[in-house]
């Protein structure tokens, strides 16, 4: 019997929403306890700041350039490499419960396997093609139960809600508006976009559903099974519509404005004007470069009270996740597995959360989106000491880490390295940088960014696009400027630093997927 793996992901969660990372709004004692007895990463970086590319990186252990999911709406091929498949072949029982998002959700043609499986109520699809020419269950998962951010649609959670609590389907915020754009409609007490009062009791909410379905699957296993369970919470991604009875946990009026929110419009505009042009253009509502933020919402209209309310609701959702994880951990302990389970907790990307006066996400490679919560609580039986790792690591490192936990050699197609267990381990293995990329092409608007995080710097180079000529960039000193408000890209005093980082950035680019896969859906 080997070590079991509980892989917990959330969606669009900021680093500073956890108590162990210095957060003081949401109470997250379960994750905090995991961090205290495990390894807490202070600079975990996604390889993409949107869902589909980032989640595909977690599964494949490859950069978006290589696995080919270069933006939301490009599906990960069914036969793409999968760490779950490796684990399944090694004898692990495998499941994914919650939000997958390797394939688009908007699927009127019913083309994508994960949507079809949900519609058909099937646990998985057998005999699917795998990356190595063999076949097996879909992406290596023998059990799949899906949910996303609401009650509409045909995923397993929506079908469960429809069958058991049909009156609740309309209680969620409508994520997309009547034209299928991300909804800009405001709600709550301050009219903030994607905020809504959800009358649903907590027990019907997707966070609890994900935890309960996870526990149910774990209960179906034999005591001596080894297992890999990806428990994927859809929150705290917008909409911010936690169950109404839970909202009172945090009074938005008591919430301080985030440190990254400049309180005057003049200050916000001054900071944004020092960044490449698309920053300010989005703030002013002149350019929407991507689908992931409401097209009809103008960030400059965000008020301090709207931001307080969003921050409070986001924190409520984080607390609900923490409590749900606590129930799963209790179920694991009750099965007698407590000493043999590795828990890895992270998210796919962050949330701007008011930084610079912005919310949601897009082609903005700063800490709000790029500094992620990442906790690895190794199985106590492994005997590893608690640690804090400050060196940059990436989500691309997760798949090889899962292999190592399972006693497998990381596959040669994996591009990351097993996560270091302390800084000296990182230094000994040359783990010193993380790469992030953004490509988007939406109705004539193209944006391309490449970023390196190394030696306390974040450096982003731009390729030519709709509003960029390829000379733009961003350079931030993370120690002196933790909020990334001073762009040093054009500062002559840092030209050698910039040159060194840019050279390393381009030298380190991964092998591209060929042929380039087409964009076939918005998200």
């Amino acid at each position, binding site marked *: 019997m080997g070590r079991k793996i509980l892989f917990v992901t959330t969606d669009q969660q900021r680093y500073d929403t956890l108590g162990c990372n210095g957060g003081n709004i949401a109470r997250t004692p379960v994750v905090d306890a995991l961090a205290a007895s495990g390894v807490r990463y202070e600079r975990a970086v996604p390889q993409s700041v949107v869902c589909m590319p980032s989640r595909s990186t977690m599964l494949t252990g490859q950069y978006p350039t290589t696995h080919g999911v270069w933006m939301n709406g490009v599906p990960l091929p069914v036969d793409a490499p999968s760490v779950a498949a490796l684990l399944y072949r090694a004898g692990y029982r495998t499941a994914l419960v919650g939000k997958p998002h390797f394939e688009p959700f908007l699927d*009127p*043609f*019913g*083309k994508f396997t994960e949507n079809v499986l949900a*519609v058909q109520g099937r646990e998985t699809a057998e005999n699917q093609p795998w990356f190595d020419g063999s076949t097996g269950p879909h992406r290596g998962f023998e059990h799949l139960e899906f949910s996303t951010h609401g009650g509409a649609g045909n995923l397993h959670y929506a079908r469960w809600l429809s069958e058991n609590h049909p009156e609740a389907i309309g209680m969620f915020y409508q994520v997309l508006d009547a034209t*299928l754009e991300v909804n800009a409609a405001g709600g709550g007490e301050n009219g903030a976009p994607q905020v809504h009062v959800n009358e649903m009791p907590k027990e019907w909410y997707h966070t609890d559903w994900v935890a309960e379905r996870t526990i149910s699957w774990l209960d179906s296993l034999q005591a001596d099974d080894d297992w890999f369970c990806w428990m994927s919470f859809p929150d705290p991604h917008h909409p911010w519509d936690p169950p109404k009875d839970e909202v009172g946990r945090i009074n938005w009026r008591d919430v301080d404005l985030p440190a990254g929110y400049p309180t005057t419009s003049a200050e916000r505009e001054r900071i944004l004007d020092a960044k490449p042009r698309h920053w300010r253009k989005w703030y002013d509502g002149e350019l929407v470069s991507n689908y992931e933020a409401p097209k009809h919402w103008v960030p400059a209209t965000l008020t301090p009270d709207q931001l307080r309310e969003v921050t409070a609701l986001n924190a409520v959702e984080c607390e609900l996740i923490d409590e749900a994880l606590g129930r799963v951990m209790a179920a694991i302990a009750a099965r007698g597995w407590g000493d043999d389970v590795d828990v890895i907790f992270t998210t796919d990307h962050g949330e701007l959360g008011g930084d610079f006066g912005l919310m949601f996400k897009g082609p903005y490679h700063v800490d709000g989106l790029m500094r992620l919560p990442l906790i690895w609580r190794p199985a106590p039986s492994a005997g590893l000491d608690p640690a804090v790792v400050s060196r940059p690591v990436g989500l691309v490192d997760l798949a090889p880490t899962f292999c190592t936990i399972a006693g497998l050699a990381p596959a040669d197609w994996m591009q990351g390295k097993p996560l270091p267990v302390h800084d000296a381990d990182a230094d000994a293995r040359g783990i010193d940088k993380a790469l992030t990329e953004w490509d988007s092409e939406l*109705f004539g608007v193209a944006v391309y960014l490449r970023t390196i995080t190394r030696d306390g710097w974040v450096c982003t180079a731009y390729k030519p696009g709709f509003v960029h000529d390829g000379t733009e960039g961003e350079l931030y000193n993370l120690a002196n400027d933790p909020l990334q408000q001073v762009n040093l890209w054009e500062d002559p005093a840092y030209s050698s630093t910039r040159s060194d980082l840019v050279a390393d950035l381009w030298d380190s680019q991964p092998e591209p997927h060929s042929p380039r896969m*087409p964009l*076939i*859906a918005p998200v």
Partner: protein
Amino acid sequence: MATLRREIRIHAPASEVWKVVGRPEILHLWFPGLTNCTVDGNVRIIFLGSGMPMPEEIITNDSLQRRFQYRITVPIFKFHLATVDVIDLFDDTCLVVYSTEADPGVMALVIGGATTGALEELRKQFESGVGPALDAVGINSNINSSVAAGGTV
């Protein structure tokens, strides 16, 4: 309003490819994600893999220009126009261009994004010489196999 264009070069004569593209009632035989379609006059109803029927109005079916155009007429579209052009490249190959214009713009991608797969399927059938769309229009698979191998028709 948004516009989307997908194109593919097919190693088969434009006249042969048009025999398929110009037959609106067999779209489901080369457009993945469609389960069936019916044509009554200038009204076509396509049935999506999700089970949704979608009515369309056929605007143009011009065998001289080898251009086929249709509009989706469900209310979520304020406007929709799809155009399929089969362009002769005069070397026994052709370029098939599938354009989608739609308002709301995002619908261009929701619907038009699937045209990539349709074009790939069309090429696959012609260049392999085998496929239900070819069978439906009576194209001889042996002839098309010779096209795939570099021969001429």
